[in-house]
């Protein structure tokens, strides 16, 4: 333990603690910009500088470990002067057109300049001489260099959490900037559209491309029937944007709000998550059968999940040789979209050309996914607009809906019913767990041998998790699986996905089934979720997801009555011809570098 004093108060902290964290213990908040709990220390914004008595220069609190006997001042004259200067300097390079900024009201730089009252700052405006560009080509992410403060959080996110490295710091000195390869558009490079950079950008330099106006236009067009689907993770995140604490579930209020906003049918992606399990589970079992019984060497195993569009784009770029291993199932969003303009239209007697299909997603990559050319199997664009959780919160505010006071409401039917298995898609390991709950039961006729159906080994926050389940006493048609130990791997965060795939590639890891979610924590930590994010918040959302699961009447996808119904009335059976037409897709190899 090291003892030191901060602002005259003594504190003891373990060796290696930063001044920032030591100060936190004494309830002194030191302002930061480049620092982020999920990322390694950078120490480059310098807004956290503090004074060490007797020291020549100020110290970056985020980057400096404590030492014994240190006397630190966090608010001395020198510190105040330097901090104000740093903020003024950042503002002088920054397009501070706050009222027109998408991040107005949720900007760390704005908060700091407000805190330090730098209203009439004296420095020269440097923005006029800079040739800042705005990249609006990506369907998911807008990169506006004029708002960038070069904290490099996005670069560190792209590298350390995602292992993608689509973003880099380029040039030096006054020309230093955050760039892609050759300053290409985000749409032209290896960006996976995961949006994790957006979640960590302190300003408005990286934001989602918004489709709010298009959605409002559709809602307010009497000709259109606007269908909305909500992803599992939205219900455990939306509240944070509307005054609730992280981890508070707002499913019923959200449904009520969507109805008030004027959506004609408020439906649930959880339904198509259940459907995904039926298709993907069957696909896995079919692959296993072909491998084990037919001894077909062309079967690609391990099979990987395909719900995460960030993962899909990543594997298309990074491990294209493994594309045959990716389940051909569309993501729940796209299954839903394809059915909305076919099955739903048929049942509700609607002309599909008048249906506008909107999805609310915790994700920015879903915006890209909806725009993929192959996502038109209904004969129309299957999902017209994708909004993030943040955008939905904005709509609710725009419409003046008093969210907190809303009475809980229920999803419409059809395609509104779901099970706990669909809900847990929102957490890392959830698809695996949902698939196992169903597959095990199909094979053996018995429930998975875990208490309360909670397959805890696949849950958690570890980057890569391995689990196996021994299959015994199978039903007759599955007897070839008797004694097989089904091996599974789960990864979240693309840096972990890369590690997992490298292990598979090297032969070091042999598994049957892999779940990958591009974002840390799974969809609940997605790039479209409320800002800020950190592990603590993600854990709260995870608890909420599992609590939602526990609260559901049904917990297994194959028991979803609407899923049973759609097979009976429309699809036939999993992997049927019609399923293949509407619910399955193919992938495209892309450049790795």
């Amino acid at each position, binding site marked *: 333990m090291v003892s030191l004093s901060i602002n005259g108060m003594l504190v003891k902290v373990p060796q290696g603690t930063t001044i920032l964290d030591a100060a936190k213990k004494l309830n002194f908040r030191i302002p930061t910009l480049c620092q982020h709990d999920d990322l390694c220390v950078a120490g480059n*914004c310098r807004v956290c500088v503090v004074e060490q008595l007797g020291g020549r220069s100020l110290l*970056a609190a985020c980057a400096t470990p404590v030492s014994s006997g240190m006397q630190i001042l966090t608010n001395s004259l020198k510190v105040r002067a*330097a901090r104000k200067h740093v903020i003024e300097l*950042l503002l*002088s390079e920054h397009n501070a057109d706050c009222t027109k900024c998408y991040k107005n009201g949720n900007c760390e730089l704005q908060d700091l300049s407000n805190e330090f009252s730098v209203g009439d700052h004296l*420095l*020269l405006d440097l923005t006029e001489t800079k040739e800042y560009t705005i990249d609006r080509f990506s369907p998911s992410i807008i990169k506006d260099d004029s708002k960038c403060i070069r904290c490099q959080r996005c670069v560190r996110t792209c590298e350390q959490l995602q292992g993608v490295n689509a973003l880099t710091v380029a040039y*030096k000195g006054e020309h230093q900037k955050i760039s892609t390869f050759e300053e290409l558009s985000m749409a032209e490079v290896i960006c996976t559209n995961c949006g994790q950079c957006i979640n960590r950008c302190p300003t408005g330099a990286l934001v989602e491309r918004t489709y709010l106006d298009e959605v409002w236009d559709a809602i307010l067009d009497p000709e259109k029937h606007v269908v909305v689907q909500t992803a599992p993770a939205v219900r455990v995140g939306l509240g944070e944007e509307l005054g609730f604490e992280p981890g508070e579930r707002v499913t019923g209020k959200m449904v009520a709000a969507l109805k008030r906003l004027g959506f004609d049918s408020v439906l649930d992606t959880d339904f198509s998550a259940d459907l995904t399990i039926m298709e993907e589970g069957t696909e896995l079992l079919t692959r296993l059968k072909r491998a084990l019984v037919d001894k077909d060497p062309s079967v690609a195993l391990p099979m990987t999940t395909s719900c995460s569009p960030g993962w899909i784009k990543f594997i298309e770029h990074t491990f294209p040789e493994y594309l045959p291993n990716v389940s051909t199932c569309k993501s729940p969003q796209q299954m839903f979209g394809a059915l909305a303009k076919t099955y739903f239209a048929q049942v509700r007697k609607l002309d599909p050309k008048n249906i506008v299909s909107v999805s609310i997603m915790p994700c920015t990559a879903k915006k890209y996914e909806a725009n993929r050319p192959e996502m038109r199997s209904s004969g129309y664009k299957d999902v017209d607009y994708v909004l993030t959780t943040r955008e939905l919160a904005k709509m609710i505010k725009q419409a003046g809906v008093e969210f907190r006071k809303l009475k809980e409401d229920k999803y419409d039917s059809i395609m509104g019913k779901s099970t706990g298995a669909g809900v847990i898609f929102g957490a890392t390991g959830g698809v695996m767990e949902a698939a196992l709950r169903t597959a095990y039961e199909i094979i053996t006729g018995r429930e998975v041998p875990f208490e309360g159906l909670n397959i805890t080994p696949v849950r958690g926050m570890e980057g890569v998790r391995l689990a196996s389940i021994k299959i015994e006493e199978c039903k007759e048609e599955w007897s070839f699986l008797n004694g097989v130990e089904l091996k599974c791997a789960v990864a979240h965060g693309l840096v972990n996905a890369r590690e997992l795939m490298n292990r598979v590639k090297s032969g070091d890891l042999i598994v049957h089934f892999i779940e990958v979610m591009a974002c840390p924590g799974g969809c609940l930590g997605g790039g479209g979720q409320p800002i800020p994010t950190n592990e603590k918040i993600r854990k709260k959302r995870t608890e909420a997801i599992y609590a939602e699961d526990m609260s559901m009447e049904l917990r297994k996808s194959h028991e979803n009555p609407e899923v049973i119904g759609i097979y009976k009335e429309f699809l036939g059976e999993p992997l049927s011809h019609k399923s293949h037409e509407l619910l399955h897709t193919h992938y495209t190899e892309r450049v790795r570098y």
Partner: protein
Amino acid sequence: MKDKHVKRVDLIFEKIECRDVLEKIIDMEPDAICQEILESDLKGRGGAGFPTGMKWRFGSQEESSIKYIVCNADEGEPGTFKDREILDQVPGKVFCGMAIAARAVGAKAGYVYLRGEYKFLIPKLNEELAKFHRTMDEFNQNFRIQVRLGSGAYICGEESALFESIEGKRGEPRNKPPYPTTSGLFGKPTIINNVETLVYTVMIMKYGASHFKELGTKDSRGSKVFSVSGDTPKAGIFELELGMSVNEFVEEFGDGDTKAVQVGGASGFCVPRKRFEETIIGFEGVPTGGSMKLFNSTRSMYNVLHNYLDFFTEESCGQCTPCRVGCQQLLKGVEAVKRGDKNSKYLDELVKLAKTMKRASKCGLGQSVGNAFGSIVENFKEEIIY
């Protein structure tokens, strides 16, 4: 007592047989080498002036099977060119110094990081290096050196930026601590010394600490190689005993009309005529990596300052706010004052800003921009404004 004028010394460029020194140190205990260097009071000749013996001792105390010796030959400070001359004249002594450091701390690998602008030296260095490695073989020593080239980035002279560059990355300085002796190149304990420092260690091992210590003053022992340029009839490289005043220096090197001397390059201090007498060149006064630039009365100090600020604006690595934006503000700020767009009071604001840069920047570059800025603005305010 020494005479009241500059005194030439010939240690650095003295042609010696490095073999003899190597043979001697190979038999010495590592700690004895550190002790000898410590006793000499040698301070780093790159500009920062950290005691070399202390650095080596810290390095020797680290537990690690891998340690590195790095020779900082990224001489980029405007007005400094002595390392080029040393590498050109006595490259064997530089490698010898690295071998001494390697022996002192227990390192097996060394790097010379040579600035890209000096690439023309490579053939000569390689030839000398082959000779050096043959000698090491003869003595059964496994210390090996490789030469790495910079590619045009002043900041890579900053030690941690230099490590980043050798590691194949952008030359962005790291947070300190940890210091290089704990975690340097590739995260291993590393001794990084300037070219000239390494050569002095050779001479100290040859002649003994006391010989070196006889020269100079209490705070600035020994001699130093100066790079003299600007308005002087005697531009060039001179090894001089430390301890002289700027006045003594100007008497020797000035053109009779010297109004200011920039000591230590763009990141050093500007000494005006009225301070020549009282200012000692050395760690007790104005420290320098060797750059001495003289300006006579025909020169506009605005132009000098502008030139320096332009340099820093381009050569800042750009990662930390005070340095990246501060340099631009100082540059654009003095232009605005000169044009009359900002009144003279704005200069005071800029001086305050330069102070923040000095206190809050991440590395030595940003921290020293304020040196030239403060000293030129303070002493030549009229020239900046009018």
